[in-house]
């Protein structure tokens, strides 16, 4: 996997009806590096992330993730974690059990993977026995990030991970993402908060600079 960049996007075009959103977008995320895309609302950040995560089919253009087209295979999803789409939580399962389920599915031992530390770091220890739908929106965001970070992966695709987090939470998440990149993981995210992005160890770039044509 190391021979290929984590993400390569070339000449990507997406339009919703007659409104072009992405016009000739090109982007490279080297393996083991972080890139943060910024830009105003509606400029196409989420669309770009959705295309890279194979959750949306572009009109034209080429996308490669670790040298291969993104797919819906279990192998792809073992390498890639995305929070572009919010999850629907399983009924009757607590916060901690959701984290443990994901760990076990990846063959991890929950104690070794450090579930309790992760929940503690994200301020969820007091809510370990709650069911996720009863959490606040910020806590749900924290849980999603905790689960995304606790399982093994090579590429994180995060859509505004700082959203709904309080200032301390942002610092904490930024530090975790920086560690993730330092440990060899790749990161592609969209954000409105450049301080957060820089603290996450990501190279900040604007959506305009990625497009061949001004949208």
């Amino acid at each position, binding site marked *: 996997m190391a021979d290929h960049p984590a993400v390569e996007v070339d000449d990507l075009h997406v339009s919703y009806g007659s409104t072009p959103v992405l016009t000739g977008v090109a982007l490279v995320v080297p393996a083991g590096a972080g890139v943060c895309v910024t830009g105003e609302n509606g400029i196409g950040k989420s669309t770009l992330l959705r295309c890279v995560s194979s959750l949306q089919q572009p009109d034209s253009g080429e996308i490669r993730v670790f040298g291969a087209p993104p797919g819906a295979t279990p*192998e792809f999803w073992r390498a890639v974690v995305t929070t572009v789409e919010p999850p*629907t939580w*399983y*009924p*009757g399962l607590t916060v901690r*059990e959701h984290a443990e*389920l994901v760990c076990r*599915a990846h063959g991890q031992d929950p104690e070794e993977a450090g579930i309790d530390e992760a929940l503690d770091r994200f301020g969820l220890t007091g809510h370990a026995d*709650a*069911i996720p739908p009863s959490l606040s929106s910020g806590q749900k965001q924290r849980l999603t990030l905790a689960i995304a970070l606790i399982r093994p992966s090579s590429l994180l695709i995060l859509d505004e991970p700082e959203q709904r987090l309080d200032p301390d939470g942002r610092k904490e998440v930024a530090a975790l993402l920086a560690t993730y990149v330092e440990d060899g993981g790749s990161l592609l995210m969209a954000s409105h908060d450049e301080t957060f992005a820089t603290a996450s160890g990501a190279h900040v770039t604007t959506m305009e600079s990625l497009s061949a044509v001004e949208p």
Partner: protein
Amino acid sequence: MTAATVPLAPVRRWIGRRQSAHRERGATVGNIYFALLFVAVVGGIVHKQLAVVFWPDAPNASRLVAASLVPTLFGLLYLALRRFGPLALSRPAASWLLPAPVSRRRLLLPSLRLAAIVAAVVGALAGIAIIGHAAPRTLGGPAVSLLATGAGLIGVALLLVALAAQAGGRWGDRVDAVVSLLLAAGLAGLIADSASSGSPAAGGWPPASVLLPLVGALALVVGVLFAFAVRGLARTPNERILEAAKTAGTLFDSAFGMEPSFLTDMIERRYWARRHLRSKRFPVRLPVLVTQDLLLVARRRRRLLWLALAAALPVLLADAPGALQGIAVLLGALLAASTSTGGVKTDAGNPTLLRMLSLSSRQAIFQRMWVPGVLAALWSALALGLLATLGDLPAGPWWALGLTLGPVGAVAAVRRARVGFVRNELLPLDTPMGTVSTGPLVNAAIGPDALLLGLPALVEIAQGHPLSWTSVLVQAVVGGVGARAYLAGTTSPDRVELNAAR
């Protein structure tokens, strides 16, 4: 702060006028006409069946059945009232009128009136059905109408209890539990009667002269309590009314959008929101999703208890054709298996967590079929074993046939859980009674259709011949091969999403 309230009637009139401005002229009249036509046509078609249900030619129920029907029918009425409120507002009224400075009593009175009418009518119908089945035909018209009136009053009394429970605290849950027990006892009585052969009840019914003061006293008591309830209406807590308004709204959405999953999802969400859970550690040996389903089942012990009791229900069909009994067993297997398909339902609706788990759709569905399969197998074995023990089925290893229905129930329940929203774009059918949209019909059939895999068992039950081990083997093979084919046909080892990309 003043206690002055804004009069409600002009507000309601204003809303009514604005709404009618958006409706087509004569739409309401048309709707009433079609509703009446529908009732007349359906009544004309099924009046014979209605007569069998409410007023058979001769009384055919024993004392035990009559005594069991009372807690069964009125217990169901009470639990239904509790589940739907009983006091509800429309969602717009809950949003806009509940926080407004209008008289709370006047706001809620129409809802109470409607609930009282429904409870009285249902109670009276239940009373008539019980009298029709159990009372001798010598009972005079006045006595019958007095008894029916009494039953209607009991319906209203139950409504008042449900109303107090809606406003009150935890005792409401306890009353629910007691009523559930009475309901279970009533069902047990019905089953016990169909297992034995009780003779139809004879006399012992009080004459009209005795009933008149009794019903009069009951009417007085219910009337006084109703007046108290109306006075206390304003004390109903807001959150209870909001909850009931959500139920009413979801019910309306379900009916209007012909999408029953709105309602079932809401009931499930509320159930889990009220539970206090403790996180459990997952055992290492079992596959993760099997563990998850087991956890889900372990947390629904009350439902398991009901399922176990419901295994006796096919006994009620002892006098019906064997095929009907077989269908009841198959449907029961589907319901038993559905206890643990919440995970499949979640994944079918939103594959995000499945992507996080990175399991292939084949692994996921394979693991998720185990617990439903075991539940279906145990339930069918219990139901068929009971039928055989009570002598409703000829000799043979019926319990083993029940066990082989496990894969059948699992396939049907998982298939049902994977069905998405109703496809309302499907071509509607024009019939003489109006247009029937096929979407909901097709949707309702997905899942139960897989019960065809239980055809060998159904044929065995319907025929009523002694059961051989060969037949058990045939059903086991058909069920096993069917489950395998389902897995191979609808999942893939290199796709995570349960539904193939469109």
